[in-house]
């Protein structure tokens, strides 16, 4: 089999990996949090069941909504799949589509999904949609500069914005690079960003059911049937994708396949999933130990991430 076809197959494997395991990762996180709170919690397969049930249900759309409302779930579903082609999800070397963009492009794709979801939330006339959407934008405009700072600090350390090269740099420098303060600070800032961007505690409560207090989750209130299923699946994939970027590019760039064979990819997939679950355990414990912040204190949370990033950059300038 020629190398180009093999790489293409590996790309398909990345897509299948994200599509099939993202609901499981989200289910594990949900169950873990409930267990930590002393509750029994849903099955870890609950997210699969939800998605299957929603696909079977009839979709109802408000007569006041426009094409945006139908379009947003597709975008939210497809963008994580685009981005997973750009980042080292399973292999250490770039695959066929990796030439399409670097980390800035990945950030753009995810921001695009967020943009359309916010527009769609305002589209229906549901009173809670615009509130959640504008709050989401508020968090978003605070988070995005910090995302840029994280990308630039990482690029500055690794001299590249291509995630594959960043990841190679960490491996090449060995253990000393994991203790490198810039590296550690960027990891801390990125974790804070995942928490903010994924609407987890302390920024937002993912299991809350009060519409008035929602940030991220009120955007999908109006969806039913297929649209709701795509939204749910898309958000599970986005969480898994950000986690993959964190663990594979920043924290532990080991355990990835260095060649395209079925066995190597399977081993890599298992390793990456173990790493993702390990991070989700950390996330669950962090979420457990914090209280939700008031809306106007989110600036402080994201501001701390920003200053940490600034530290990382400045340290690089001063002490390198």
């Amino acid at each position, binding site marked *: 089999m020629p190398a180009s076809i093999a790489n293409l197959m590996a790309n398909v494997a990345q897509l299948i990996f994200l599509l099939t395991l993202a609901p499981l990762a989200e289910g594990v996180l949900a169950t873990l949090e409930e267990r930590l709170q002393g509750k029994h919690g849903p099955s870890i397969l609950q997210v699969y069941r939800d998605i299957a049930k929603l696909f079977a249900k009839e979709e109802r759309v408000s007569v006041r909504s426009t094409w945006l409302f139908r379009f947003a779930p597709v975008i939210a579903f497809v963008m994580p799949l685009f981005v997973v082609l750009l980042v080292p999800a399973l292999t250490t070397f770039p695959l066929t589509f990796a030439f399409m963009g670097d980390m800035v492009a990945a950030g753009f794709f995810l921001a695009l999904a967020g943009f359309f979801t916010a527009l769609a939330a305002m589209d229906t006339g549901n009173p809670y949609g615009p509130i959640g959407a504008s709050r989401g934008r508020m968090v978003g405009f605070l988070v995005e500069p910090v995302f840029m700072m994280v990308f630039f600090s990482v690029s500055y350390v690794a001299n590249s914005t291509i995630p594959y090269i960043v990841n190679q740099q960490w491996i090449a420098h060995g253990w000393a690079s994991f203790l490198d303060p810039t590296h550690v600070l960027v990891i801390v800032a990125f974790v804070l960003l995942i928490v903010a961007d994924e609407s987890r505690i302390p920024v937002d409560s993912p299991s809350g059911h009060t519409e008035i207090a929602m940030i991220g989750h009120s955007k999908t209130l109006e969806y039913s049937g297929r649209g709701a299923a795509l939204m749910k699946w898309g958000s599970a994939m986005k969480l898994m994708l950000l986690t993959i970027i964190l663990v594979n590019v920043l924290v532990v760039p080991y355990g990835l396949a260095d060649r395209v064979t079925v066995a190597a990819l399977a081993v890599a997939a298992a390793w990456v999933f173990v790493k993702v679950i390990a991070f989700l355990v950390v996330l669950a414990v962090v979420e457990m130990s914090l209280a939700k912040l008031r809306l106007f204190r989110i600036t402080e949370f994201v*501001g701390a991430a920003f*200053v940490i990033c*600034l*530290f990382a950059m400045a340290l690089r300038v001063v*002490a390198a």
Partner: protein
Amino acid sequence: MSHVSQLSATLSAADSLLTVLVGLAALGLVISRQMAALLRLFMAQSILLAGSATVLAVGLPSEHLYFFAATTIGTKVVLIPLVLRAVATREIYAEREIDQVLSIPLALLVAAVLAIVAWTLVRPLAVDLGDSTLVLHVSVGAVVLLFGAFTVAVRREAVAQLFGLLVMENGALLAGIALVPNLNAIVEVGVAIDVPVIALVVGLLIRTIHEEIGSTRVGYLRELKDG
């Protein structure tokens, strides 16, 4: 004479990490709202400082720094909390939020500016200092010093000001252990005794203020009271 440029790559990286975490703990002090968190942050920072000293002690090697690490743990992690618990339990362990002159987002921005100022000041010294570990210690030490001073200046709260003072001292020591690894034991003993005494004196002061005016919000004490 031992010098920090003798460190191996891994030890140097471990030391940088601990040094930077000392800086982050100082940032935590600037932005924390909870009274009870201040003492915990200070203790965490002292443990990190002792860790950094231990890494330097292993790398150089320097027995003075082992002694320094031990006294830091002994005084700042054990003795100071005991002293403060003895003299000002109600004030230090209060579960309430701290008043401040600046809002937290503004304080964050000022902290960022202070960090840049400190690093700009240290940058010209970098050539003379030479080694990157040394530069890092001096620059983060300067940042911690400024953050401590900032806390003393903008917090209208005696307890936070006490920790600002103590954190300033940690910052000075952070720079000191890298600049002068073989500090005279007399100096170290002096510092080790000084710090709990500062905590005792300020702790007593805080308690007296609390007893006299029913609050530790010293920022509101602007006018003298007659009789």
